[in-house]
């Protein structure tokens, strides 16, 4: 060891020597820019994979350290975001409900125009009897708003039913699909009179209700529209009911019966219009209904 020391330069010699190397390197790389490229390439192939490895390790460590540190923050943020999600979901629901309502009301408006000869009051269904179908239901308008028993109720498409009972702020409606309901009707083209009777069984099966007492000579055709007739004691004339199908002659051979598919979707009634006009008939007159 001692021997080798004797042959080595002093620090100052070394400083001069290395400085000269540096100056050489500087001038070479300044003059010949491409000369150092191979050197860089070699160094990069060696060092960059290592840097990558360490970096991914560092990222992993950093991630974990960060996640511990900010756990509290994240929880806070999560709670906040959840709150926000709830809020937005609610808002979204409200909006889509509003849109649906808008559609419904627009349909009602159309009906309102179609039956413009009658005065009407808009009402909302607030409860219904059991089952999916609106056999009988309650609306949110009552005698306070001028609703009286036997007033006709219509919705998008046509006749819904008739008011059977009124309270101060509510009214019960019996719909035409109710088994106890019968409506005197006529075909819109031929004018053949008949009676539309509720049938809660067939309405659940295929959405139709019964039509009876069609004269055997009547030339009512399938697909024809039924409207309320002029001889009805409770129903105003000319309200659409539905389309006729399955006309058949009864076994008595005196009358025919058929099925009618109501225009109103009795599974989804939300808003209805009550016609605030009663059909005036003498109290003792015969009723077709």
């Amino acid at each position, binding site marked *: *060891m001692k021997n080798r020391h004797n042959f*080595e330069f002093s*620090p100052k010699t*070394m*400083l001069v020597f*290395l*400085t000269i*190397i*540096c*100056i*050489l*390197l*500087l001038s*070479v*790389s*300044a003059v010949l820019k491409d000369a*150092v490229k191979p*050197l*860089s390439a070699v*160094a*990069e192939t060696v*060092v960059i994979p*290592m*840097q*990558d490895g*360490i*970096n991914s*390790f*560092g*990222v992993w460590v*950093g991630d974990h350290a960060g996640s511990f540190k900010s756990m509290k923050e994240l929880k806070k943020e999560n709670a906040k975001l959840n709150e926000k999600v709830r809020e937005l979901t609610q808002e979204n629901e409200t909006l889509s409900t509003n849109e649906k309502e808008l559609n419904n009301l627009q349909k009602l408006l159309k009906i309102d125009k179609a039956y413009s000869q009658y005065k009407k009051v808009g009402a909302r269904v607030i409860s219904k009897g059991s089952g999916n179908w609106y056999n009988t239901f309650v609306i949110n308008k009552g005698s306070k708003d001028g609703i009286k028993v036997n007033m006709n109720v219509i919705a998008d498409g046509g006749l819904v039913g008739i008011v059977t009972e009124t309270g101060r702020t509510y009214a019960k409606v019996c719909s035409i699909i109710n088994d106890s309901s019968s409506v005197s009707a006529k075909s819109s083209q031929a004018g053949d009179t008949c009676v539309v009777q509720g049938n809660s069984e067939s309405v659940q099966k295929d959405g139709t209700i019964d039509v009876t007492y069609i004269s055997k000579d009547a030339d009512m055709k399938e697909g024809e529209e039924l409207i309320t007739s002029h001889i009805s004691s409770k129903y105003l004339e000319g309200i659409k009911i539905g389309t006729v199908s399955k006309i058949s002659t009864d076994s008595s051979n005196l009358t025919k019966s058929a099925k009618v598919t109501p225009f109103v979707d009795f599974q989804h009634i939300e808003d209805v219009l009550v016609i605030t006009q009663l059909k005036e008939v003498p109290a003792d007159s015969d009723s077709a209904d």
Partner: protein
Amino acid sequence: MKRGIVTAVLVFICFILQTSVFELIKLAGITPNILLILISSVAVMRGQKPGMIVGFFSGLLMDIFYGSTIGGFAFLYMVFGFVDGFFNRIYYSDDNILPLVLIGVNDLIYGFIMYILCGLLQNHLRIIYYLKNIILPEMVYTVAVGLVCYQILLRINDWLEKNEKRGADFV
């Protein structure tokens, strides 16, 4: 021989650490200069010549990767090694203050030189801004990291010296 390999590996590790891991754990956009820690530590522990060689090669690495011309950092770091080597004469291995002071002063000077090269020559005259936002924070951070790094390097040096002594005994 063993010392040479260990030192080369140390230079390499410090370089990779500085350019990868410490880039990730920046504080306020500042990375500590651990190559400078290595150079100061080696120079003060081993003397001028090892300090110069370590400085030269770590500077060369910096040049190859980040400089447009090769030799600038090599010269700068070599001079650091040379100057720090003077303090080897008043250094004892249980003296923890001197190396840290050297590291801090080195980094301060390094910061000013970088300011002159990168800032002043490109007409950025806001020395106060550089001082407050780059030079002083880097110095503080480097000294803080140096506190740990120096202890590790000291242990490695002790271990190498022990090995060398044993080798000398055998010879």
